[in-house]
């Protein structure tokens, strides 16, 4: 199939591994799904230490279940990315380990206190879900199918995240202050989750033309603000003065994008932000620490009696 035909036929779940897709499509889809998969993994690693800090057994159970889900989403997405035939899962995991793999801006920042947990588990997951719901209509069928399962599970994550936030928002004055401080720090990053405004986005046009993406960065960001600004306010959170957010009538919001730090965003996006580099390296260390598990499962070709996996035909 040539690129023009792909653009003509592009629609929800239109293309599957049985179709002969042009390399340009397969590369664009790989880039997008690999980014998504990497983000699931890096988000899970960022949250993992807070399983131990959970303030009650119920929270600990729920939070560890959530982190486990996110790792599972990463696996699902690497499978969807592999189905394009450009990269293997091992290549993508190695790229993530050596700092070439790109992932979501929010997961480059360190997390230090429990008050930051709902910033990820409610706002970032809420933003992710808003985007993922639109990707159920992606033109790459394996990606859309992965989104079915991810969206099914994510409702628990967002509502649990909200529950953590609600508890702090109705807790002691100190807890409320900690929550507000975390919000002040995370809010601009959360808005940047959706990437730069459409005119500055480098990859949007082609991905939209071939149906991989369904909505533009701006549409998604505005839809997120419409739903989540009132949410934040309802928990008594004060929206920071900057970036300026304007209510443009009838429950719709618009953000002044020049108020956001795009230099930092692009540094983060290139994996050049210091805390993010540390997070990449610590996941790499974790990957290397369990090499022996993978070797045991997959069999070491150098050992007598072991045999290579049969080739798929």
């Amino acid at each position: 199939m040539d690129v023009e035909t792909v653009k003509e036929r592009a629609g929800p779940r239109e293309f599957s591994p049985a179709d002969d897709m042009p390399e340009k499509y397969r590369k664009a889809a790989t880039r997008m799904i690999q980014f998504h998969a990497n983000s699931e993994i890096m988000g899970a690693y960022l949250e993992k230490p807070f399983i131990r800090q959970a303030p009650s057994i119920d929270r600990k159970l729920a939070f560890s279940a959530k982190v486990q889900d996110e790792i599972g989403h990463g696996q699902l997405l690497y499978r969807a990315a592999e189905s394009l035939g450009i990269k293997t899962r091992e290549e993508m995991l190695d790229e993530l380990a050596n700092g070439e793999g790109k992932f979501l801006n929010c997961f480059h920042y360190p997390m230090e206190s429990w008050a930051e947990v709902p910033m990820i588990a409610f706002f970032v997951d809420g933003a992710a879900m808003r985007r993922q719901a639109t990707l159920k209509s992606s033109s790459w069928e394996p990606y859309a199918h992965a989104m079915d399962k991810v969206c099914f599970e994510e409702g628990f994550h967002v509502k649990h995240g909200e529950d953590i936030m609600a508890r702090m928002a109705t807790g002691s004055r100190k807890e409320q202050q900690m929550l507000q401080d975390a919000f002040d720090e995370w809010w601009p990053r959360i808005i940047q989750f959706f990437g730069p405004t459409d005119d500055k986005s480098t990859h949007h046009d082609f991905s939209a033309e071939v149906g991989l993406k369904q909505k533009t960065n701006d549409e998604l960001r505005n839809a997120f603000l419409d739903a989540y600004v009132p949410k934040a306010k309802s928990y008594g959170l004060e929206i920071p003065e900057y970036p300026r957010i304007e209510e443009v009538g009838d429950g719709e919001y618009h953000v002044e994008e020049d108020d956001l730090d795009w230099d930092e965003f692009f540094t983060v996006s290139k994996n050049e932000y210091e805390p993010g580099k540390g997070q990449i390296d610590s996941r790499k260390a974790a990957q290397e620490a369990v090499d022996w598990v993978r070797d045991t499962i997959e069999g070491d070709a150098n050992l007598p009696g072991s045999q290579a996996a049969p080739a798929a035909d």
Partner: protein
Amino acid sequence: MIWEVFRQEKPGDYHTHCGNVHAPDREMAKQFAVIQHGRRKPTESLWVVPQEEVGEVDADEVAFGGTTDKSYRWAMAYTSSTEHAKEVIASQQEQEQAEADRQRGDD
């Protein structure tokens, strides 16, 4: 040789199991599947899989979903008075449906 057949009704749908065919090789299995399973019901695509390649694990062997109370894994466990985003509501509805299906299976 027996081949299990999975049918997809519309583009983008899941392939779901619909029966099997006898055939000596994959090409013949595909042809027989077309005739036996793609003739009347709406069909976009069929998969054929050698039956012996199918692994099965059933409810006698494992307790699907575990044996402890995992209600904390469900959106319904968390209540709040605020209005939820539409995709969160949709997710919860799917979970409620799955839970209802599971309960029915227990009867």
